[in-house]
């Protein structure tokens, strides 16, 4: 299976300047990528892949979007909920318990001890 995404066609300044390494590497990866197309291997997508991928991605995304605006607790809740959704049906009890636990842990560890500028609540 060829990995196409490595098509970097950027070659800025082509002297022994900043452009040299990138261009050389870009070419290299193109060649190598093409060569891997000759290696056929079975690609296995496990059954729950799409859901796992989506849920986890959403989990991180939610965190990134909410943590500064809505505070640590909300962000934590988001992460826990979405991660649990990736894998069967989460029970409200477990999710709440884990969220509570992690929020407390997070506040103690990150905000109090490590002085990270985040608010627990908005």
């Amino acid at each position, binding site marked *: 299976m060829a990995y196409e995404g490595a098509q970097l066609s950027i070659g800025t300044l082509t002297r022994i300047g*900043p452009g040299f390494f990138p261009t050389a590497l870009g070419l290299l990866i193109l060649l*190598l990528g093409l060569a*891997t197309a000759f290696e056929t291997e079975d690609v296995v997508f496990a059954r729950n*892949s799409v859901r796992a991928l989506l849920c*986890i991605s959403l989990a*991180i995304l939610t965190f990134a979007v909410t943590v*500064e605006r809505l505070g640590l607790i909300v962000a934590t809740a988001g*992460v826990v909920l979405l991660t649990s959704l990736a*894998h069967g049906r989460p029970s409200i009890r477990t999710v709440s318990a884990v969220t509570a636990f992690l929020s407390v842990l997070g506040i103690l560890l990150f905000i109090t001890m490590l002085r*990270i500028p985040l608010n627990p609540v908005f």
Partner: protein
Amino acid sequence: MGLLENIALGIETAFTVDALLFCFIGVSVGTFVGALPGIGPLVSVSVVLPLTFGLDPTVALIMLAGIFYGAQYGGSITSILLNLPGTASTAVTALDGYPMTKAGRPGLALFINAVASFIGGSLAILLMMGFAPTLSRIALSFHSTEYFAVMVLGLIAASTLSGGSTLKSLVMVTFGLILGLAGMDLNSGAMRYTFGIMELTDGVSLIAVAMGLFGVAEIINKMSVPAVPGATDRVRRIPLRSMLPSRKELSSLWAPILRGSAIGGLIGALPGAGPSIASFMAYACEKRVSATPERFGKGAIEGVAAPEAANNASVQSAFIPTLSLGIPGDVVMAVLLGAMMMHGVVPGPQFIPNEPAMFWGLIVSFWIGNVMLLILNLPLIGIWTRIVAIPSRVLMPTIMFFICMGSYSISNNVFDVYVTLIFGVIGYLFMVFRFPPAPVLLGFILGPLMEENLRRSLVVARGDPLVFLDRPISLALLSVSALLILVPLVKSIRNILAGFRGSA
């Protein structure tokens, strides 16, 4: 200074209350964190790093190093008991360790793990004591040309020697190199691959990438298999008797442990090659050397002993190039290097002559740490495993939480969280398409360094590219790299040709 005097100096430094305390904290945290899948030494060293600012540099390093080799031990625990490798390097241990658990002998596997790791680590420490000063003397004759050649060798060795497709590893390495270039070029001020995003001026954060590629990708991978109820709860108390090997087994363990230590010690010293490669190679070597290779994969004790010795040995010897050449032997080493520089210590050829107390203190503390690990873990095996048997409903969200917080706290910026996200998705795709993610990190770290050295060599040689072949060390290193690629290539071409002839 004679070796004995150096050791005495080291003992003096390492046996202070501070040093001992933090060594203990380090190895404990390391073991715990190594056992947690998804959080490895890299993340924990990075997270703990800011906490060490107030400490004496030597003590800080002792602790961070403790986390590093402690994690190798911890990762093996879950590999054996739950078939969930806590760190990449311990994945090999699961191959024979987990079948042993299923056969009802988990205690034995864990015991072998502890002892083999201890011996491997100790042997490597001896190696360090003997060779590090010599190496640093050689290092002083290394110029940018040799550095470049060494890095090339490191990357190529990493690609060819690890299992799986060499070609794919090379692609990954190149990808990593390119990633490492993102940001502002120091020599010319030109922006490369920044896409106009301001946060990218300093390049992409290594930790964010690492957490995405390894942590997030692994979690997605775990969750992509539908939940199997009851698969993770069979860890009960492990009786002491079952932990000890029979005499026959004992005698068959010496050789694998020694071989594993040797392989680990050598590979760890190579820049860019680390415990993962070492453990894979040790396993492959054992399998090839064994009179009964069919036993592997079903619970062969050599299959646990050799990789474990190798991965601990490589972790110790990875300090050799880091301390004496200033080139990280491993990703975590790179972070440790950063830590040292933050404390104002510059590793490199000047390090040992300038800071003998720190150097020898570190070495002695490694040994202390290994002893601590051994003493700590044997009786605690039961307890560790109970913590680790937390159901994944709780474990996975916890890990995700730490990953998110971890990447946010890199520079208190959500940008890094996005980076982790993107690389998490990419990392998962890599996994599915069987592209090994580890070489990316190596390329990422060595990329800017390689470019710097390439540039410098060419400037000094007035633009003559043959300089790499002129200088003997460089020539030797590059030849080995070429051999590593060409030999398998020739073999496979021959196979293809034979295939044609056969079917003709």
